[in-house]
């Protein structure tokens, strides 16, 4: 032992870490929004589309969910240029995060859609609602409400996973840590502070999601 902790250099460069944290928020926030769009499309295709489309969605979801994010981002960043698609690290990171969270969210939203009982849809028909109205008000809205907690914890997990994008030299929070670490040589202290910032971010996101959830799902629950 006999090690003295030295947090001075870390706090002297706090602005660097905050800049990195902002990129982390942008990347994961962007992936959450784009991933939800992909997931809604895929979940609808999976529950209402023709068989070949369903298989395609299945293949996408299963392949992404059963391989590590690190390998996915390596593939996107290193392998796609060989077929002519060259991306900057941050774009590749956003693309990888979006594709990744899209698969998980597809599975979650699909489960929500399938949890709606047939009687609900039939009641909609009996009331003379149009197909689009049934899908929107009777299927989607209650489905999204049911799966909202699962979806948002997946989003927070995504934000934590996004630290991996630092390996392809994207400029996120973890990368700012790597940078600072190699300049100040106080690796442990740097990563303690970075980890604390990630922890704060995850608390921040869960507060934000709770707030959005309260604002979005206001109608009374009947069961």
């Amino acid at each position, binding site marked *: *032992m006999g*090690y003295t902790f030295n947090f001075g250099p870390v706090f002297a460069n706090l602005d660097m870490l905050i800049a990195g944290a902002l990129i982390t928020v942008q990347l994961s926030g962007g992936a959450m929004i784009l991933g939800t769009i992909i997931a809604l499309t895929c979940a609808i295709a999976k529950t209402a589309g023709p068989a070949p489309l369903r298989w395609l969605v299945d293949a996408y979801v*299963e*392949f992404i*969910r*059963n*391989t*590590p*994010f*690190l*390998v*996915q981002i*390596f*593939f996107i960043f*290193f*392998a796609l240029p*060989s*077929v002519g698609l060259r991306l900057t690290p941050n774009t590749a990171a956003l693309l990888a995060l979006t594709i990744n969270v899209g698969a998980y969210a597809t599975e979650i939203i699909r489960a929500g859609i399938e949890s709606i009982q047939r009687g609900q849809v039939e009641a909609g028909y009996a009331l003379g609602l149009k197909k689009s109205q049934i899908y929107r008000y009777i299927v989607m809205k209650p489905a999204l409400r049911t799966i909202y907690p699962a979806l948002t914890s997946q989003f*927070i997990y995504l934000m*934590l*996973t*996004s*630290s*991996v994008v*630092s*390996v392809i030299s994207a400029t996120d929070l*973890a990368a700012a*840590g790597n940078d600072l670490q190699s300049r100040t040589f106080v*690796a*442990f202290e740097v*990563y*303690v502070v*970075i*980890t604390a910032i*990630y*922890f704060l971010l*995850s*608390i921040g996101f869960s507060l934000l999601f709770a707030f959005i959830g309260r604002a979005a799902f206001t109608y009374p629950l009947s069961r």
Partner: protein
Amino acid sequence: MIRPFGIDEALFIILAVRWTIALSLVAFAGGALGGLLIALARVAEARPLRYAALGFIRLFQGTPLLMQLFLVYFGLSIFGVGINPWIAAAIALTLHASAFLGEIWRGCIQAVPPGQTEAAWALGLGYRDRMTSIVLPQAARIAVAPTVGFSVQLIKGTSLASIIGFVELTRSGQIINNATFAPFYVFGLVAVMYFVLCWPLSLLARRMERRFAVATRR
């Protein structure tokens, strides 16, 4: 000189699976032990124990696994233990798995109807007998499917050990890629290897979940 991507290179990657499996098994075994302790602490009667376990879970579920790996890796060197990626990865993944399994199993223990515990009390069973012969066997049945599901997450998590220099499947892919510059084949093969490991477990977890749902339907 660029090496072509041939049989030997592919074999190097395929054989590296054993290190991914070894690390997963070590982390799972350690995580099972730690997870059991965490889960028991989470449902303990002593309040400080419950809060300590909750804090542990929140901490590990609220921070990236990559940072947990870095902290253990650099932390070990501070405490005078030499830097060894294998040990650092095993410890970090064990702690990580303990937190996740602890939270999963806490739910399973609480899913056992409270009447069972009360009956055990009525029979005069002590804590140990109550847990080992009444509550835990019933909780274990509920826990199998989500535990298999988590093992997939753990196997994927071991890929991050490559970042601190542990040569497993992903790191072997990077090594071969640096020599052959055939990222399409290399990372394609690495991804397929992970898929071969994880997909059967995912299918198994889903099938057990479905069977359990049918068995407990009211």
